[in-house]
């Protein structure tokens, strides 16, 4: 879809308005509740353990460029870094995309400054390794085996390198917390990590860790919008089941035409 269709225009604008309204309402002091997310509760434990063992923490934001996923991952890792800074511990952050490098360095510097420990921040702990997937994976695996970090935090966009990193972390006995919107990589993280946050918990993480009203409000907005989506899905299923495909056509008519075209073609069994 190069440009918005009318359904996309209506749905996206209404959803955006609901989310913004929820944020503004929370900023005006509405009290909000957030459920416990085990993977995120474990962050303090993992940071504390690293400090006790006198070993650094390693984190990664994966292979993503400077997009929403990477920015959210950096926000989570910067929250981890603030906790680590309070304990006087190091956070290593190897980077795969050079555009992310200055932003990541700035995020960690701010985190250490906010915790009042800018003196122990080393810019070289945030380092560029390689844009190539497996060169990056090999580089991170090397750092894991040389520095022996006590905890690993893996948040961001991951592909096949996820298991290489997480298994090396597992081999040295590190506590590992991971979260990614890349759904195909979640099974690998579940097999290798101690805690995995799944799906949109990834976007709830900063709200959970900081309890800022803006972020909590945004989370409530997201949930309202998800509820509406769910209702639309149920409505669509009911209407289609009772022979009203007009709604389906309204959302996407060209796909249906494509499916029908291939049903008509000779020799097509699928």
């Amino acid at each position: 879809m190069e440009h918005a269709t009318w359904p996309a225009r209506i749905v996206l604008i209404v959803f955006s308005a609901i989310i913004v309204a929820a944020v503004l309402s929370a900023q005006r002091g509405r009290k909000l509740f957030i459920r416990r997310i085990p993977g995120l509760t474990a962050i303090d434990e993992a940071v504390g353990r690293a400090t006790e063992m006198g070993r650094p923490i390693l984190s990664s934001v994966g292979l993503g460029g400077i997009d929403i996923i990477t920015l959210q991952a950096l926000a989570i890792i910067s929250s981890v870094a603030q906790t680590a800074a309070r304990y006087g511990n190091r956070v290593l952050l190897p980077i795969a995309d050079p555009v992310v490098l200055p932003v990541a360095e700035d995020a960690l510097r701010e985190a250490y400054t906010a915790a009042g420990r800018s003196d122990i921040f080393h810019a070289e702990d945030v380092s560029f390794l390689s844009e190539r997937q497996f060169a990056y994976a090999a580089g991170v695996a090397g750092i894991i085996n040389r520095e022996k970090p006590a905890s690993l935090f893996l948040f961001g966009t991951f592909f096949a390198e996820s298991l290489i990193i997480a298994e090396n972390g597992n081999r040295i006995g590190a506590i590992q917390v991971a979260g990614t919107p890349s759904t195909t990589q979640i099974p690998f993280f579940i097999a290798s990590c101690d805690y995995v946050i799944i799906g949109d918990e990834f976007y709830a993480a900063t709200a959970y860790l900081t309890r800022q009203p803006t972020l909590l409000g945004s989370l409530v907005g997201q949930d309202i919008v998800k509820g509406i989506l769910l209702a639309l899905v149920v409505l669509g299923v009911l209407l289609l089941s009772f022979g009203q495909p007009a709604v389906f056509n309204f959302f996407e008519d060209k796909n249906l035409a494509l499916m029908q075209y291939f049903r008509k073609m000779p020799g097509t069994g699928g």
Partner: protein
Amino acid sequence: MGFFDRLQNIDRRVLYLLLILAVGLPLIFSAPVPAPAVLPPTRSFYDTVEALANDPVRRNKLVILSANFSSSTAAESLTQTDTVMRHLMRRKLKFAIFDFVDPQGRELAQQTAEKLQNQYGYVYGRDYVNWGYRPVGAAVPTVKAMVRDIPAAIGRDITNTPLTEIPVMEGVKGVNDIAAVIEVTGSASLPVWIGYFQRTGREPVPTLFCTTAVQGPEAFPLLKSGQLQGMLVGLQGAAEYEVLLKEPGFATRGSASLSYAHFLILALIILGNVSMLLSRSRSSGSGTGGTR
């Protein structure tokens, strides 16, 4: 540590050795393994190519073979490219190799075409062309520009010849002259075709997908929604395709390796669980003051 405890904690180097044997031996000694069942996504991939070849209008259009992979996923992606290219050549469909993820894809697909061209009487430039590699950052603008004018968007092929001077490109202007797109990849490049190409012409362009076993499950909803007309998943998908083509090749041999490796993993999981249960029942049985 008791016997059952040891079975629960087998040294990982032993596991690795077992895997090498499970994968390597069937490849070397061509172990017998039954033909794989052809699953619906593979069947509809094959049927779509057949339907294109039987359609008097579409068979004269060009198929885009988008080789968006590198040598890392070659076992799956290159084998899929090989088997799909055989089918295109067998049915005398013209195709263009294109790549916007990794420059290796263009080279590997070209090598495959050169390997097969004599067998099927294909000639570079007359029956197929290689548009080469465009950097991933330029993928969306290039594909968008291809909708209206492919020769202008691509410019020259890998031999540095302008596309307008290549016989196979005669009559190929934009999206309406494309018979189908076949995307071979281990990355997330499919949305570029679905988002910016598939539905931009007079009729939607049939889109076929060759993906790795790991990425496969994510694409199943696209078959249901009609955005994909067929899909080969991993090496197994290629082996199923070889069954349909009745031409056993590397994928069929690889299918044996896959079978034995899967069974090794299943056996290890069973071993780990049985020894865990036995070790638990033994420790609760030998306990002196434990509650039962």
